[in-house]
């Protein structure tokens, strides 16, 4: 497992960030994809924005964007009609066992 997966398994959603130019390096990597310097690892902000969403049976799944850069797909704990692109969500849980798992909830429940 790499650093990203180890942290995810511990429940931490982290990203690589360049130690030199400070850009977020996403998807996670060992070196900056802009200047090839070493990366540091840090937690990703827990608030994200829905990019798009759909539903499989009772599961609502979506692409969520964090910090204007980091996009992941995960499960949204909401009825599909309650959510739309642009809406803020909170990362409630992440995990790693063979595959990544990301879980979101709507920030402002009505």
């Amino acid at each position, binding site marked *: 497992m790499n650093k990203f997966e180890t942290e995810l398994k511990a429940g931490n959603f982290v990203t690589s960030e360049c130690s030199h130019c400070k850009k977020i390096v996403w998807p996670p990597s060992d070196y900056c994809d802009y200047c090839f310097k070493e990366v540091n690892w840090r937690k990703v902000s827990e608030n994200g924005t829905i990019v798009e969403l*759909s539903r499989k049976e009772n599961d609502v799944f979506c*692409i969520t964007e964090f910090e204007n850069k980091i996009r*992941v797909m995960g499960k949204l704990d909401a009825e599909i009609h309650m959510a739309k692109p642009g809406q803020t969500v909170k990362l409630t849980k992440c995990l790693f066992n063979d595959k990544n798992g990301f879980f979101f909830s709507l920030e402002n429940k009505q």
Partner: protein
Amino acid sequence: MKKVAVVGYGNTKFTKDELPIESLLLESTKQVFDTTKNLSQDLIDGVIVSTNDNSKYLGAILSELSGIKPKISHTVEHLCSSGSSAVISGFSYIASGLADTVLVTGADKIGNPGQILEWDKSRGEYDHPIYWASMFTKAHKRQFSTTDEELAIVSAKNHKQAMDNPNAYSHKPYTISEIMNSKNVTEDLRILDCSYSCSGSSSILLTSEENVKRFTDEPIWISGIGQKTNSASFTKNELTTLSSTVTAANNAYKMAKITPQEIDTAEIHDAFSVCELMAVEDLSLTEKNTGAMYVRNLFNTEDRKINPRGGLIGAGHPLGATGIAQIVEITQQLQNKAKNRQVSNAKRGLTHNMSAAATSSTVLVLES
């Protein structure tokens, strides 16, 4: 740079059968030998295999099984567009003078591992293609008010056109309402809006201008090539434009010195219905936001211009073979040999292929 032409081809039927990858590769290769005049093993100095199969050294294996001792032989893997990439490799060897005559053969088995890109961690547990296709479809509906009926027309048209393709996986016509009422895979995707992974193989024989006459009186020239890779991660994509396709198409048109309006027929990558609506726009065959109307018009007038062999939805999708099968179809169209599928007076054609939700695209222009 030397001119390069397609001078021979072979195709297996696309099926749900579990067949050894070597048998599939050999089957379409045998057809090249059976149908190309004056072809003997010693005339082939390049053998390129495209596949997502985990087997190793297939270029050498196919060469040995075919009695060929080529100068150049290897395998190309690039997910769904492996076949198109292999053709570009073959083209480049000939154009540069490194080889004279190259056999390009692609195949995959029904359960091939190329359908899921495990590296793309950004997809989380939603790594099957139905999830990116649902995102594309939902975003298209949202931006362009695309309806389920407009999506179903793509599938109805391509299933119908596949009826006249003896090698197609599907030989069953479906009505628009049957497609709209087929099983919901997700809220935005019906099962009949999806292409199927299949077992199958396709081959083409490429040669340089000075060798063409030995093999055929009807060479089909590869006159334009465009390729673009934007990323490997799906989630970096725009959702309503296949931006890698836009770049690849523009480069292919520029190299061929033609405009999109000069394309008479095209095989495009309709892995899901929404992909055809996006591709006809992003290949500039119709204006942005007119894809659905364009395809509806083709369907209503029984115009086979787009995906005459049935595309991926009708013909099936053996990943490594698909890009080559597309070129076989356009070659037959431009040779006026496509029988019931023939698009009248086709002089210029195009193939469009893409990988991993259009994170990369390949466009080839062919001319008679």
